[in-house]
């Protein structure tokens, strides 16, 4: 089974966000970058599928700056076979541009599955996976929490409001992974050592700006200072009064 996994280098969610001097971007000084957590589910799923099939390859693709090689190495340390970095200093805010770059790269491959995390935790775009599927003309299931594959047929589950959708689709297909799909492995020392020797191809790409223009990146409005109403059950009547009369939500 040949599986492509598209991954992204993102700031760790614990990062303190400082706005850059241009007022439009993140100040990256001192920021720790990690493999996007949802992409870990995608990498893990690919590894398990390949192990089950007994043959094939897991290749990892990323659009990002030179430093994203490190992110690709993390996926290689988990067990992926090779990596490709489509190197671009800037990732456009327009996900369609990223999708076009990935689709152009993936088009030539003979993939049974193309996996993504359901979204990146930095820009929350949640769109590149299904856009790549459209560009390649492949069936697509997003935010899968469960996956079964039998030959060229797949069944996936996805969470919807108040229930679970059970979806059937043919392979090859594009899937985006949600939490619950599997338990991603931690790279073992052996894997980390092996990853250093695995092939990682760097291809510079020129990405257009697309049709999303950043106006400003700003801190969220401060919530007005809250108050401690009191201690224990005795504070509850006052809490309810405040919710009714001040906040007017009851």
């Amino acid at each position, binding site marked *: 089974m040949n599986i492509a996994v598209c991954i992204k280098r993102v700031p760790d*969610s*614990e990062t*303190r*966000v400082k706005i850059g001097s241009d007022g439009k971007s993140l100040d990256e000084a001192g920021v720790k970058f990690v493999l996007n957590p*949802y992409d870990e589910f995608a990498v893990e799923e690919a590894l398990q599928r390949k192990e089950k099939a007994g043959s094939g390859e897991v290749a990892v693709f990323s659009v990002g700056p030179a430093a994203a090689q490190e992110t690709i190495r993390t996926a290689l340390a988990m067990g992926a076979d090779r990596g490709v970095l489509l190197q671009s200093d800037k990732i456009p805010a327009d*996900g*369609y541009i990223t*999708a076009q770059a990935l689709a152009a790269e993936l088009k030539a491959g003979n993939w049974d599955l193309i996996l993504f995390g359901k979204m990146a*935790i*930095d820009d*929350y*775009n*949640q*769109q*590149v996976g*299904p856009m790549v599927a*459209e560009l390649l003309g492949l*069936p697509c*299931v*997003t935010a899968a*929490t469960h996956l079964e594959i039998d030959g060229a047929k797949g069944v996936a*589950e996805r*969470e*919807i*409001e*108040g*229930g*679970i*959708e*059970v*979806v*059937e*689709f*043919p392979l090859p297909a594009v899937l985006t992974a949600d*939490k619950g799909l599997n338990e991603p492995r931690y790279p073992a020392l052996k894997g980390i050592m092996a990853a250093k020797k695995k092939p990682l191809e760097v291809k510079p790409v020129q990405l257009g700006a*697309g*049709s*999303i*223009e*950043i106006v*400003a*990146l*700003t*801190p*969220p409005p401060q*919530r007005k200072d*809250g108050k*401690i*109403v*009191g*201690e*224990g*059950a005795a*504070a*509850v009547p006052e*809490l*309810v009064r405040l919710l009714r009369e001040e*906040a007017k*939500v*009851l």
Partner: protein
Amino acid sequence: MTSVLAVVEQRDGALRKISHEVVTAAHRLGGTVEALVCAAGPVKGADQLGKFGADTVVTLTNAAFAKYAPEGMAHAITERAKSGGYTAVVFAASATGKDLAPRVAAKLGVALAGDVTEVGVEGGAVVATRPVYAGKALLKVKVMGKPAMLSVRPNVFTPVERPKAGTAETIAANVPAGRVVVREIKAAEAGALDVAEAQVVISGGRGLKEPGNFKVLEELARAFGGQAAVGASRAVVDAGWRAHADQVGQTGKTVSPTLYIAVGISGAIQHLAGMRTSKVIVAINKDKDAPIFKVADYGVVGDLFEVVPKLTEEIKKLHG
């Protein structure tokens, strides 16, 4: 006169409430609003959309639209979007909208600003604001695609009534057979509200001590008379106490209810990412230094097993 396409949703032939929010957001972009719904037949409640500012309600019908049909619906919506010269197409950032909007955007070859919390028009351009970096920053963007594609975060755009005559039209949609087919929907417990859609969300964390104790929160939720859902922190979902569908936070759902009550939740960044756009936040925690109190509008320091039952009693009085 410009025109905006508001893609609304139905389930089992009934209009979903989030549709009112989509029409309300679409209306902010100016011009006329055409609400578009894909369904197998007439949609109950679609005639109400005029009340929220829809000038026209168009139902695209196809037998395959009885359930969510990602490929067929994307095809039908794309055809409609191409035909009308719309300045913008607005979706809900619901489970369906998040799946559907990128497909339509790619078919149209334009950008998508997803999960936005503010929309407007400035200097003739569609602008939108989206929370990024776990809600620690807001990104304001100009959406220059023609049409400008947006999806709006549930529970953020409070429906505004602005009655219009609202004409209705039904069109049979011819779509190719879908490869991706929804076989079945496993419904959650009857009557259970989804955390992403409830007006009141009561979430529990490790402070609940054991899974069985969530019944304390369920009783409080019931006291709100069918408007409340019970959510959970990542810690208790990872421990297997609650389903992932109930998780609020970065690796769970983003919620914006009118009232969010965090019970026994310390307030890690990853939890705050999922609930900081709630309108009013109440925290109940025995640790007065818990970070959750920094984002809460109202806090009660104390033993949740005493505070929550008392709160349930008081809420029952209001609703009884």
